[in-house]
């Protein structure tokens, strides 16, 4: 099972990288086509080229769906091999993060048909996998504090859902800020991007609240204190508050639009900080 998990991990990485290339082609290709048709005066050739680009996009999506499938398989195989969910070290957690980001991204791609968003989210997921491949992937037995498999599996599942949603929100905010008044044809409209950003927070904000609550329940069982201002706890609180700020900014005159989008960027910075917090913060969550 451990080998299955390793092979599917590699497969996911390859599928994701290849998918990303096709996304690039399908998003930026049309500009090339326009340049081409301008030069040649527009011919059948360019038409068939355009349809090839559409196909590229479709295959890109198929690849990223596959990558998500491989990731799921990898996590399940490792779960079986280790006997517990993906919460015991950075390797497992990075895999889970990539899984969450891909799952939520694919949901949005299906809903809104925006591959340009994938140009930002796929690299994040790929980066997670590349990072995972640099840390030890051996299965370590659980230390006593982590012997709380069900609660921690749910805690992590919920957390990566939130992180994935925030990654999507980040992507939407970046595109929103690129898409200035002057409309760029390769990007969706600002209203759509704004909506995607908001809806990602609609998913991420309750999940993040639940993550914090589940963490508090665990801390209460393990240490008898539901909150101890542990760095990882406070970092997730910062993240959650940041998105709380975003939700209010959206209903305040003068804060809609760009400023709200910047809050989404800050929120994702806080998310990344929470995620990597183990390294430079220590505390109860340091996995060693």
């Amino acid at each position, binding site marked *: 099972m451990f080998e299955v998990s390793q092979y599917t991990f590699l497969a996911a990485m390859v599928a994701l990288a290849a998918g990303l290339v096709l996304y690039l082609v399908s998003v930026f290709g049309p500009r090339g086509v326009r340049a081409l048709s301008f030069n040649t005066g527009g011919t059948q050739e360019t038409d068939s080229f355009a349809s090839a680009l559409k196909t590229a996009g479709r295959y890109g999506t198929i690849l990223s769906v596959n990558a998500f499938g491989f990731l799921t398989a990898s996590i399940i195989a490792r779960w079986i091999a280790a006997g517990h969910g993906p919460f015991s070290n950075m390797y497992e957690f990075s895999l889970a993060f990539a899984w969450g980001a891909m799952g939520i991204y694919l949901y949005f791609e299906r809903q809104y048909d925006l591959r340009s968003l994938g140009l930002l989210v796929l690299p994040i997921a790929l980066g997670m996998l590349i990072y995972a491949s640099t840390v030890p992937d051996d299965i370590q*037995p659980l230390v006593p504090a982590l012997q709380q498999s069900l609660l921690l599996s749910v805690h992590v599942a919920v957390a990566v859902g939130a992180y994935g949603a925030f990654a999507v929100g980040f992507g939407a905010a970046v595109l929103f800020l690129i898409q200035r008044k002057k409309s760029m044809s390769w990007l969706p409209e600002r209203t759509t991007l704004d*909506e995607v950003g908001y809806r990602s927070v609609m998913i991420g904000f309750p999940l993040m609240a639940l993550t914090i609550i589940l963490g508090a329940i665990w801390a*209460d069982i*393990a240490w*008898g204190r*539901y909150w101890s201002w542990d760095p990882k706890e*406070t970092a997730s609180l910062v993240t959650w508050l940041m998105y709380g*700020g975003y939700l209010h900014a959206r209903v*305040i005159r003068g804060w809609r639009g760009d400023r709200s989008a910047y809050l989404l960027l800050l929120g994702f910075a806080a998310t990344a900080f929470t995620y990597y917090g183990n390294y430079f913060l220590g505390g109860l969550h340091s996995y060693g």
Partner: protein
Amino acid sequence: METVGSQARVPQRTYWETRVLGRMWHFFTSVRLALVLILAITAAVLAGTLLDQAPPSVRSEPAMYAQWLSRVEGTYGVFPTKVFDFFDLFNVFHTLWFRLLLGLLTVNIIVCSLNRWKGIWRTVFPPRIRMTDAFFQHARFNARYVMDEPAEAAAVTVKKGLKHARYRVSTEAEAGSVALYADRNRFSRFGTFISHLSLVLILAGTVVGGIWGLSDPEFIVPEGITRDVGLGTDLSVQLEHFTDEYYVEGPPKDFRSDIVILKNGEEVKRGTVRVNSPLSYGGMKFHQSFFGQTAVMIVKTKDGTSLYDGPVPLAWQTREGNRPVGSFTLGSENLEVWVMGPRSGENDPLVPAGEMRIEVYETSSGALRTATNLTQGTEQDVSGLNFTFVREGRFTGLSVVKDPGVNIIWVASALMIIGLLMLFYVPHRRLWASCKELPDGKTEVRLAMTGQRDSQITAEFERVRQRVGKELRGRHAEDDRGQGGNDV
């Protein structure tokens, strides 16, 4: 945000009431203030996350705090350390200003909720049924049909369609004209209150815990010993046995303490405490927190009078050498004895395995009398007393907690999640319809829906329009103009 209708006679108010209270009230109704407070709290929490925070034990003693400060000066530099200390940034979460921010947020939430209550109540328990023609023309989502039947009949059909779309419908009829109001998930409006007030409840839970809670995070019990819990309780705990197990690879597998809880000396509960499974008795919970070794010591005078006989928990670590260390006092001799064990996992030149090092100090002057090593099982003469290091043992470190606020926290947490789910996933949808007979005997049917423009509402309006349209088409209506999602 709320549209207040005409109000009957306003009672006379004093200058104080209208000016000062009124302004303060208005100040706290602002969402902009909420944003400012949320961002300020975020910044404060971030500072508390990034900067080292002085532990409570250090803060309570000025000398230790000064020492602690001089240590962090190494990390942050002398001047920044002064600045951070000036703003209490090494103790963010317990400062007055942090609590003040939370207090302001609480007031903000409460005032804001009260202020919005009436408006929300009116959208839920309704609402206006009859709307103007202009409303139908200008509504963001609207549709229009013309039918060959009287208004009452058309209204029955529209109502059927709306019911099929799972809307709750109320009607108001006049001659030749029927107005309809339809909505679903109306109670979700209260999701805003539930999620906001759950925050207040969480803060209340922490306050309750702070006032009525008890805790001793470092309650040490050596094996075979019974110790009073203190904290104003009549409980004591006896440790029968402590076990630590390791995986063959090395990392710890299990820490467990078999303990007996006694009340006024009588056994009331017995059980095993593990890291993830505490034992509780009468609201008091006992958690496995840490453990360590003890040195069982016997001290006698030359003539054989026993001065000390029992385990000494080596619960501390020496700053240099990282050796486990503990102490006990010999009151009658005015002496304090420190016992130091070997550094774990290696050959310790100062304290070889099987030995304990002791340092005997005079309690009053603090002067070192003797320092020597004891070999296990042999009686040795130290400063005119007979010391024996009998054997090594274990102690358990329990965290003893009673927190009556914690249930409030869990209830509030559940409310938070429920409120957010209501708010985001079962949104209140409202729709108005009007069936009006035209001069030519036909009936004009109009639908209008309000809300922020987004693809979800667009899809919802489309769904309703199709439902209603299906009913209407069954009765030979012409679909005159349908504008799902277009701005007018």
